[in-house]
């Protein structure tokens, strides 16, 4: 029994790591859409770098949560009933991002396009924030009683680990997105993203080492990317 539990735990880690690797840049590009790109064409370029693959990358999140549910139901139950509110907000953000990608190209007025660009940026930021917050809370600990229920009410999860984890998630996704755009695009956007990506990596590495064990996985990825950049 012990070996099976270990195998599943490792599998869940693999799935979460895979999700962060693959959806990190999707979220980053989504957040960068209103910021990095000026013209409509540049916005379309950003959207199309992730266009064909974002859906499959998001599925890794579903499999990670599903594996947690299947192999460790008590963990799943405690985690997602204690973190009910961040999970609901994360789901709303996921809905907004997905719909924004699909609907943005379907209307032709400027109001339509700018609304869905805004929705995509806010949705991606929300996902990155809440996933980072939930991962950090899992690492730093939740106040649970013997039965696995949260102690202290609906908002007992709010604290510095959640905030730093969330901001770490957002920062990680931004850097990841910038580097991805530096690889995938040509010309003006490529120059801008490479320039900001390098600066972002230095900041990320510094802040990751100072926040230490608060957000383990984002800082690991930040340093990995930084080393690959050189």
């Amino acid at each position: 029994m012990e070996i099976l539990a270990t195998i599943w735990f490792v599998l869940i880690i693999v799935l979460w790591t895979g999700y962060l690797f693959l959806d990190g840049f999707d979220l980053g590009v989504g957040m960068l859409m209103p910021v990095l790109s000026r013209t409509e064409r540049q916005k379309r370029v950003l959207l199309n770098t992730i266009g064909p693959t974002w859906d499959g990358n998001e599925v890794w999140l579903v499999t990670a949560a599903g594996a947690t549910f299947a192999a460790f139901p008590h963990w799943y139950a405690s985690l997602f009933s204690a973190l009910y509110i961040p999970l609901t907000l994360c789901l709303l953000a996921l809905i907004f991002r997905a719909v924004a990608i699909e609907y943005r190209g379907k209307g032709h007025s400027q109001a339509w396009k700018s609304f869905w660009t805004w929705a995509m940026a806010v949705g991606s930021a929300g996902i990155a924030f809440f996933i980072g917050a939930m991962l950090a809370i899992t690492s730093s600990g939740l106040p649970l009683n013997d039965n696995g229920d949260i102690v202290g009410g609906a908002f007992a999860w709010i604290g510095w680990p959640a905030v730093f984890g969330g901001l770490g998630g957002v920062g990680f996704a931004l850097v990841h997105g910038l580097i991805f755009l530096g690889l995938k695009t040509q010309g003006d956007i490529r120059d801008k993203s490479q320039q900001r990506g390098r600066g972002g990596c230095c900041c990320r590495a510094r802040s990751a080492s100072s926040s230490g064990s608060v957000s383990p996985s984002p800082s690991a990825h930040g340093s990995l990317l930084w080393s690959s950049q050189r």
Partner: protein
Amino acid sequence: MTTLLPDYQEKYGTHLPEDERYGQHSGEKIDYQPIMIVTYWGFRLMIGFGMIAAGVSALALWLTRKGTVPASAWLMRGALVSITAPFIANSAGWIFTEMGRQPFVVAPNPARQDAVYMFTQAALSPQLTPAMLLFSLISLSLVYGILMVVELRLLIVYIRGGVASAMPEVTKTNHTPRITNDEDDVLSFAY
């Protein structure tokens, strides 16, 4: 119901056990009867609208036999309205099943494997307040409702517009466009 009630009370208890899993519902009296009006009408709506959907499909198959195209405007309107029938049947069926299985979340097996059953109160997380549940229910319903309206409007625009509205590059020239400039490749900008 009156014949089953003493049977159930004997096998599964008259009150919920005093267990921590039940949270604030420990020791409550169990009502083995679900809300009958919802169960009764849920089932009939489900079967009724399901048969309407099936009937409309059969009728459409009959009316378009041998490649005939029906010309009646009322038929066309009726066909559009009938799109809602499976959705109503689906929703009614889910409401029926979810409210009819109360107070159990895992109903005891009628083939007498009575050890496997679970009350809904045991399956709820005790620390979830009604406020949190209402928040998620209302916010998700609102978001889905708004998105449904947006999607229906998009559908109507594109159905009325035909091919020209969805793929203008196909109808601009008489033949498939030859992509000379890589920057304007349609597939590169598919989104």
